[in-house]
Structure formats: structure tokens, C-alpha cells
């Protein structure tokens, strides 16, 4: 037996050595840096681009960048990070992860290097600032740079509109108009189709909806929940509870009006898979008219287009044999919209096509897409996020890792994102081009003007205009705050509690969480005083809101409210805090 043990021991030792000897670091004399990122074929191309960029811009520095796609999971990043074995460059999603990782000390401060190497905040969109920075001892520190910008908006399928025979939505709409349009659409779309349900939209981001009422997850001073508040409206009144209304509306749209699918119906649509995945298939086959999509979904849409065009051309060949060769010419010269116009014109004139050959606007030819803003109450807005890269504090090659972030701001990288459609490029300087706004049609890549040309600029305009990042309170982790909202909200949707209970309970639990967190801070922690001052200021703000008076800008820490009050003309930017009414005044 002991010989067996010894042999096993020997074999394991040899295997260990073999693994060590075949590590990439052992096979090259260059320093190796790892990039933890998501599974996307484009990453290999980006790695090659980085090596080329380094050779061109930093020829004195050798580096081998390797992808690590197996450790993108947040928990893995945390455990590896605090254990000292994290990857040199790590992707994070939004400020949520950036702040969590920073609080654990695994994210490097990069403000100086960013200025020096040209990947400062001025090289990206101003709206992203809160996602990329943290506050340390009162100073704002940049800790990340975007790999891409992940903002979504409503995209609709004109093929489905053609099939149903329904007009397109307006460019922007209020909640009432959206609801009216949705009801009319589902009535018509499902009139002749009792076995299948079509919806107007797959979903709507809840935060976009309640923010449009002028409220946010946190209050103005970030010292407590804001979701139970009555928002200050443009007419100086505080009459509507935005969160309550948002929950009521989504419930109504899903369960009463049936213009949106319920959570279980969405689950049934099988929404797994990256870059749209099965959700895209569901959108493409017309389960819903409007998809909440980001530019990254064009990656899959382009792949889909190739199949759809192949299907269309097969049918057009058949129609050519059947005596309609002109249809193929129209498709090649004028595109798919003109083709279907012509088919409809012919049918109106009495032509009857063989149903097996008649192109289907839902299934054949490139997707014909257009876009519309999210519905809103007072403030048109959109969600904003980013996949941002950070440098690991425990990296042995921080300098090289930092250069990778500089590469993210470069023309080479941004051109790759522009061409690949993996979200918006991080550097807006590279969006002002035909390649971004109106990419040339390329059947080999599945790029078609009807699919894309109306979308790129809209996504860009959102980021440069109405999009707002998430709000972060220094007193609580965003994830913890979100968790306090989740259960009461689900319970309301499942009919266990009322909507008012959901709002009140969520807010009360969030307030308690913040107070508990603050109570656990060290006695000399400056956050304690900041919190106490914030509470006082909040009382004054609440009093002003109750009185319908403008709020001094310097009192507001929550960037959403600065923006909202400015939009509705209730922000006092004079710099002198006005006299406030008695603080005891009730907000509601």
C-alpha cells in the first residue's frame, strides 16, 4: 500500500510541476497581466489590439495580456481580491461593484495616472462620473474607466407593426399616452390570435419609471430612503408618491391591462443568454413590440440578420421563378422596407402570392427597428450603466494594468467597440463619425441600415442628455439597499401586501439599515457627523418641499435631485440658502 501512496504522491508532484511549468508566465519572458472579463469573442480581438497599441505607443514596455473569463463572477472577484490573488485588470458592472470593491481596498486610485495617460473623466461621458469615481476623505478619486457604456432604451420592431397593421409610437410619450397606445396595440395584435399573447413592451425599468415622478431610491441628502416620498412637482405641489404609482402602474400593465408580460411570462420567454439571447428571439418573433435594449444587442441582431436575409433571398428566388423578378431588384436596390411596400401594393392590386413564398415581415429580411423614449410623468430619463475596468491593488504589474485603461480611451479600442457594437464606445470623441452613426451596410456582418441607423444616435443622445446613473449613499451598500426593496415589492406583485405597504415597509427598512450602519461606525468617523448634518438638512429640504419652494442646490447631495429640480425649475442655484419654514412641517 505504501508504494501505491508513494507512486500517487510522485505522480501528483509531477503533475503540479507540469502545471507550474506550463503557466503562461513560465513560457514567456514578458510580464503577464490578466484581464477578468465576460465571455465575448470580441475580447480576443481587443487583446490583439492592445498588444499592437502597446508596441506602437509604449515600445519600451513588454507585456502579455491574457483573458480570464472564468472568474468574472462578483463573489470570485471579491474572494480572490481580498486574498491577494486577483486579476490585474477587472471588469465591473456599474458603480455598484466599483464601490463595493473599492470599500474592500481591492481597487487602485487612478486620478493622477488617468490625467497623465489620457483616460481621465474628460475622456468619457460626464453622466458616467458617479459610476467611475469614489469619495475618499472628501476628495473625488477616479478608480475606473469604461470598457463600454451600457445604456438601454425602448426599441420597437417595425416588422411587427406592419404585420399587425398598427401605427408607430411617437418619439416620446407620457405614461398616459403609452398606456393608451399599449392597450390599443394589444387589442389589435391579439384580436385574431386567441392562442398567443402579444404585448406592447417586454418590461420597463422600475427606477426609470419612478424617477420620472421625481423621486429616487435615496432622499436628497442620501441619509434615508426617498421612495416613500411625495415628489415635488413642477407646479410646486407634492401630491403623488412616485414609487407607489410606479408599482401600481407596472402591476396594472402586467395583470390588468395585459400590455406587458408578468414575471412568470417573461421567465417562460426564456430570457437567458448574453447580448439579448433568447429575449431577442422572443422580440424577433413578435412576442412583444418594444424591447428594452442596449446597443450591445446589435451583436446578436446582426447574426440574426444574416439568417433572416438568407431566408428572404430564398423566397425572392422562388418569387422570381414565379414571375416576380422585380421584387429581388427592389430588395437589392432599395432595401427591405421598399420590398414589403411593393408586396403590399401588389397584393392590394389583386396579386395573390404562394403563401410558402410570400416574405414574412416578422421573419424574413433584416430587422427593421426604430426607437422611442421611455414613457415619463414629469422627467424624461433613462438608465445608465457601464462595464468599467479597474486596476487591482494587489497587482504585480500596476503600471501595465493602468496602461490597459489608457488603451480603453484610445482610438484603436473605441473603433473596435464602434464596429463591434458592444455598447457605446467609452470615449465620445469617436462617436462623431459615419462609422458609428450610419455604419456601411455589410451583408457578411449582418449590418443593415434599416436595422441600425435610427438607433445609434438615439442611444448616444440619451447618454449625453437624459440618462442618469444610479445613486449611491455613503451609508449603505447599493446592493443592501436594493435587497430591502425586493421582498416587499415582490410581495405586492404576488398579492400578499398592498402597494402602500410595499413602499412604506421598504423605506422604513432602508432607513433602519442606514441608521444601524451609522451607529456601528467608529466614534470619530467623519461619516457620523456628515450623517447628522444630512438629517438636519433633510428636514429643512422637506419643509421647503412642503411649502412648494425651490431647494438650494448646495443642500442636495443626490445628483438625481439636482438634475430633477433644475429641470422643473425648483432648484435654487443662487448660492444663498433661503430662510426655511418651520422644520416640523409635514412633507405630505
Amino acid at each position: 500500500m505504501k508504494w501505491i501512496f508513494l507512486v500517487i504522491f510522485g505522480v501528483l508532484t509531477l503533475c503540479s510541476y507540469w502545471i507550474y511549468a506550463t503557466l503562461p508566465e513560465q513560457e514567456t519572458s514578458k510580464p503577464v497581466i490578466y484581464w477578468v472579463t465576460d465571455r465575448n469573442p470580441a475580447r480576443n480581438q481587443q487583446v490583439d489590439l492592445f498588444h499592437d497599441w502597446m508596441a506602437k505607443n509604449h515600445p519600451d514596455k513588454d507585456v502579455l495580456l491574457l483573458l480570464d473569463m472564468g472568474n468574472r463572477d462578483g463573489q470570485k472577484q471579491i474572494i480572490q481580491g481580498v486574498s491577494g490573488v486577483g486579476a490585474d485588470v477587472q471588469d465591473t458592472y456599474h458603480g455598484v461593484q466599483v464601490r463595493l470593491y473599492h470599500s474592500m481596498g481591492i481597487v487602485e486610485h487612478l486620478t493622477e495616472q488617468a490625467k497623465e495617460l489620457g483616460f481621465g473623466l474628460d475622456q468619457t461621458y460626464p453622466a458616467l462620473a458617479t459610476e467611475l469615481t469614489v469619495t475618499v476623505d472628501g476628495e473625488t478619486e477616479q478608480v475606473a474607466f469604461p470598457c463600454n457604456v451600457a445604456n438601454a432604451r425602448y426599441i420597437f420592431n417595425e416588422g411587427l407593426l406592419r404585420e399587425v397593421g398598427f401605427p408607430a409610437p411617437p418619439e416620446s410619450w407620457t405614461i398616459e399616452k403609452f398606456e393608451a397606445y399599449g392597450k390599443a396595440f394589444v387589442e389589435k395584435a391579439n384580436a385574431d390570435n386567441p392562442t398567443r399573447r402579444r404585448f406592447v413592451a417586454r418590461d420597463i425599468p422600475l427606477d426609470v419609471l419612478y424617477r420620472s415622478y421625481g423621486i429616487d431610491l435615496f432622499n436628497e441628502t442620501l441619509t434615508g430612503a426617498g421612495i416613500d416620498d411625495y415628489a415635488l412637482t413642477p407646479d410646486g405641489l407634492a401630491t403623488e408618491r412616485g414609487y407607489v404609482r410606479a408599482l401600481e402602474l407596472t402591476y396594472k400593465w402586467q395583470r390588468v391591462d395585459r400590455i406587458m408580460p408578468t414575471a412568470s411570462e417573461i421567465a417562460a420567454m426564456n430570457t437567458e443568454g448574453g447580448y439579448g439571447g433568447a429575449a431577442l428571439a422572443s422580440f424577433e418573433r413578435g412576442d412583444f413590440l418594444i424591447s428594452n435594449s442596449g446597443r450591445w444587442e446589435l451583436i446578436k441582431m446582426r447574426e440574426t440578420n444574416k439568417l433572416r436575409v438568407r431566408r428572404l433571398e430564398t423566397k425572392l428566388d422562388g418569387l422570381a421563378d414565379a414571375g416576380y423578378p422585380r421584387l429581388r431588384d427592389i430588395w437589392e436596390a432599395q432595401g427591405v422596407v421598399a420590398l414589403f411596400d411593393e408586396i403590399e401594393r401588389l397584393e392590394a392590386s389583386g396579386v395573390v402570392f404562394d403563401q410558402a413564398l410570400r416574405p414574412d415581415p416578422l421573419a424574413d429580411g433584416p430587422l427593421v427597428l426604430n426607437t422611442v423614449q421611455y414613457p415619463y410623468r414629469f422627467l424624461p430619463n433613462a438608465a445608465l450603466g457601464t462595464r468599467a475596468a479597474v486596476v487591482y491593488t494587489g497587482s504585480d504589474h500596476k503600471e501595465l494594468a493602468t496602461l490597459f485603461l489608457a488603451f480603453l480611451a484610445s482610438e484603436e479600442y473605441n473603433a473596435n467597440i464602434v464596429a463591434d457594437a458592444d455598447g457605446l464606445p467609452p470615449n465620445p470623441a469617436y462617436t462623431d463619425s459615419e462609422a458609428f452613426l450610419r455604419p456601411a451596410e455589410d451583408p457578411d456582418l449582418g449590418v443593415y441600415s434599416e436595422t441600425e441607423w435610427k438607433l445609434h444616435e438615439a442611444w448616444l443622445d440619451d447618454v449625453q442628455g437624459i440618462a442618469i446613473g444610479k445613486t449611491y449613499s455613503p451609508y449603505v451598500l447599493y446592493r443592501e439597499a436594493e435587497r430591502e426593496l425586493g421582498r416587499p415589492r415582490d410581495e405586492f406583485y404576488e398579492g400578499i401586501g398592498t402597494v402602500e405597504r410595499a413602499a412604506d415597509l421598504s423605506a422604513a427598512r432602508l432607513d433602519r439599515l442606514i441608521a444601524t450602519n451609522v451607529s456601528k461606525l467608529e466614534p470619530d468617523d467623519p461619516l457620523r457627523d456628515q450623517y447628522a448634518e444630512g438629517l438636519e438638512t433633510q428636514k429643512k429640504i422637506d419643509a421647503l418641499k412642503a411649502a412648494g419652494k425651490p431647494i438650494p442646490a448646495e443642500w442636495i447631495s443626490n445628483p438625481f435631485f439636482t438634475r430633477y429640480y433644475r429641470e422643473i425649475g425648483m432648484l435654487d442655484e443662487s448660492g444663498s440658502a433661503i430662510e426655511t419654514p418651520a422644520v416640523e412641517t409635514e412633507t405630505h
Partner: protein
Amino acid sequence: MPTEQVEGMLTDAGGKPRDPIEQGTQSPRVSDTKRLATGLAFITPNILGFLAFTLLPLLFAMGLAFTNWDLRLHNDMRVEQFGEAPLKFVGLDNFRDLLFEPTLPGQPGMVFGLVDGWTWNNSFWKYLGNTLFFMMATPFAIGLSLLSAMLLSKDLSGGNARNKRRMLIGGAMVAGVLLMVGGTLTVMRLGSPMNGMILLFCAAAATIIVLGTTVGQTVYRTIFYLPHFVAGVATFLLWKKLFNPEYGPLTMALRPILDRMTAFINAAPWLPLTLMWVTLGLGAAISFFGFAKLRKDYVEGDLGWRSAIIPFGVMLLPALLIFSWYDPLAEGTAMAARVAVLLYMAAVFAALVHAIIYMAGGQEIACKSVEGGGSAFMFAAVMLVGQLVLIGLTATLLQLPSWAAEPAGLEPPKWLADVHWAKPSIMFMGMWAAIGGNTMLLYIAALTNVPQELYEASEIDGAGRFGKFWNVTWPQLAPTTFFIVVMAVIGGLQGGFEMARVMTGGGPAGQTTTVSYYIFQEGFETGKLAYSSAIAWFLFFLVFTVTVFNWRFGNRYVND
């Protein structure tokens, strides 16, 4: 050299017994040391591994539970960037925060407001409740694995005499099955996937029957155990697909059945209501039986009066629960529900009063007041589960006519997406896994060890199938069942993590979050390692207590 042997002992030339070491009957001291060293060398890696990867982390985690250790404050990487943050001893604060939380504005304190400022920790108790709810599937899972083990212990092969002929028939059937698979693929290609799937299902079933008939029980055992060769996560993903609320196979299979049921119930709405009285009656009968058994134990000196209090309370729980679900005095409660609740409560309280009056007459054999509490509690717990199942069935039957009368009729559940169905769905999956799992293997092994003479003796005594099972098989399986119960309870208390992580994310509305998933959430999503350790140690305490309880009282049944 040894010269002669006296009584098995070597002697020297003088006839004196030689040193045992020299005789070889006892190793020399040096040999002892060598053997000790060899033994230690073999077990040292294991001991070191245990120390390094089990004992020390355990002790470390225990220490951690009494500190404020938070990954956001205490880790080496953070120290480098922000400086040292003091690690504080916080005593039992983490355990306090685990069990209690500050009250919300307007919320009363604990114990009807008597303990001001604190209330039960809503999250933890809910998640512990979820864990215990999932464990209600354990008795059913054990029962089903015993059933499958008994089935798989039968000789299901064709037998020797006709084996050849059957093999021939089997071969022909296999060929037929292959043809069916080919046909299936053709049908699917032609655009009729549903028919193709039905064909494929039939083909698979036929293949299994053919193989089982020709080869025997080994085939069935292998097929039953197959899911255990598949990684858990893959199985969960498969079940997630099965539970798809609109297009999943379960939903698709249920839909036509429910459509027919809807029509049937609408035509005969009296039927479910009649059945409701049957299930309610069975529930009441269980209650009667339970109280009668406890009363008998008390009178015969197997149960002391103090020990009887908790089991009696447990037996009363269903009556109180049914009252809380259907308040007979509340406005809007259906007349049938009012009558049912009142009758059920009357029956339970009658059984209770009857038992108490009988017990007031004293014990025939005196015993200590704390005698037999564990056994009685376990018995009452089993009765509780039975009553709850029947009450649930009663409530369902009560509602059936109104559900069927709705425009959409009876609809399949939304499974994991439904707040009421998420837990039962996962329990259902767990039972499926248990049928062909290790429990079944243990039972198969145990069944082979039951002496045939006992069955023969019971046959001579005139025992039928059930009699043989109840008087021979079941008692003989008691040690195995005991082991399975102990392990299942431990596993149940620790379980639920993978399912929550892969299938539901703990939702909807926290319905599938178990204690183990809560540990993960707190430890690795928000970095509160100390708090997370406190939860883990509380769970350990719970598992330990329940296991001690099981050993202490469960062993009696085994020894009986």
C-alpha cells in the same frame, strides 16, 4: 536456536520460555516504534489536512462570530490602502442581530410589545421557516426511496427458462425502438415536434422495458441512479426548464388535464366539496388517533405529564392554523369553510378533552413526569405533517369550484415564479432526486440483509404482503431508516443553497431563501463575514441539537 516447544511456547536449552519478542509472538520494541511511525506517516497528511482545512477554520469562524469582521473593513488589501481598521470583539451582538432587529416606526416590540425597541429578525426567521418547510418533504422522500428500493429488489428479469425467447423478442423490440427513434427524428424534421417528442418518449420507455426484461433489475437500478451521475447544477437547470411556467413540459402536460378537470368540476361542483369532507374527516381522524396514542402512552407509563405538554401542543397546531387561515367569524368567509373549520376544531378539541379526562384518571403504571418526551414529540411531529397535508388538500378542494368557474378555468401553477408554488416545486424536485438517490441505495443494501427465514416464518403465521412489510421488513430496516433520517435532517437544515443560487436567486419574495443561502448572501455579497459566521454557528447549533435529539430518542425505535 529453539530446541523444543512446550504448550505452544518456544523454550531455550534450559527449558525456560524464551522472550516473547524472540518467539515472534510479540514484536520487539523497535518494531513497535517503526509500526507507530509508519501508521503516523500514513495518517499525518489526513490529520494535517483536517487541522488546516477543517478544525482551524472552524475555530477561526467561531472566533469570527464574536467580532465585527467585515470584508469592507478588515482585509489585508484594505489595510494597504486605507490603513488599519481595528477588529473589535462585539460579544453576542451578531447573534442578537441574527435573532432580533430594531422595530420599525409604529411596529410593536417583541412579546406583544413588552420588549420595546426590538422585534424578531424578519429575514432570518423567514429563511429558517423556509428551510424547515423544505424539510417537510423529507418523510415523503424517504418513503418514496423505500418504495423504489423495494421495487428494485424484485427480480424483474425474464427468467432463465424462457430467457432465450425473451432475448429474441427483446432484440426485435430494440430494432422496433430504433425504427421509432428514426421515425421521431423524421417527424420532428417535418415540423411536428410535439408528436416527435411523444414518439421519442414511447421509444425510450419501450427500450427501458425491453432492457429490463432481458437484463433484469440492474438496468432499472442503473436508470434510477443515473441522475446522481449528473452534476447538481445541470440537474437544477434541467428542472428550471421543466418548470417553465408557460411552455415547460410539466405545464404543457398539465394544461389539457386541467382543462378537462375544469369542465368536469363545472359540471359537478358538488364533487370537490364532498371530497373536502372526506379529507377533513381524515385529518380529524389523525387528530383522534394522535391524542388517543398519547393518552395510551401516558396511561401505560410510557409518557410523563410534563413530557406530554409539548406533543399535545404540536397536535393542536393544525386546529389553530386552520383557524388563522379561515376565520369562521370573519366577514366574507364562505359558509362551507365556516362549517368545515368549526367542525374540525370541534373534533380536535373533543379529542383533546377526551384525552385529558381519560388521563385525569391517573396512570396504570407510574412513570417520571419527564419520561418519553422525545418519542412523543417525534410521533406528534409526524401526525402534524399528515394533518397539514390533509388540511392543505381540504383548502384546495374547497376552492376548486370557484377556481374552475373563473373564465380562464384551472390553470397550471407558475411553479418557481409563483410565491405560493416556489417552495413546493423545489420540494417536488427534491423528492424526485431522493427516489433514485443514495437513500434508495442504502435501502436496497438493507433489504438484501433481511433474513429470508423471517419472511418464511411470517408466511407460516399467515401474514399477507402488508403484514410481512409491517412486521418484518420495516422493523428490520429500522437502523437504516434511523441513519437516513439523521442524515436527511442534517442535510435538510444545511441545504437549499444550490437550488436557490441556480434556480430562483432566493425569490420570489424570499420564498426559497434558506439559511445556507442567507449565509452566502451576507458573507459574500455584502462582505459581513462575522455576521455570516454567526449564522453558520447558529445553524451548527441547530443541527447539533436536532441530531442529539435524534440520537437520544430515535435510537429507541431502532432498539425496539
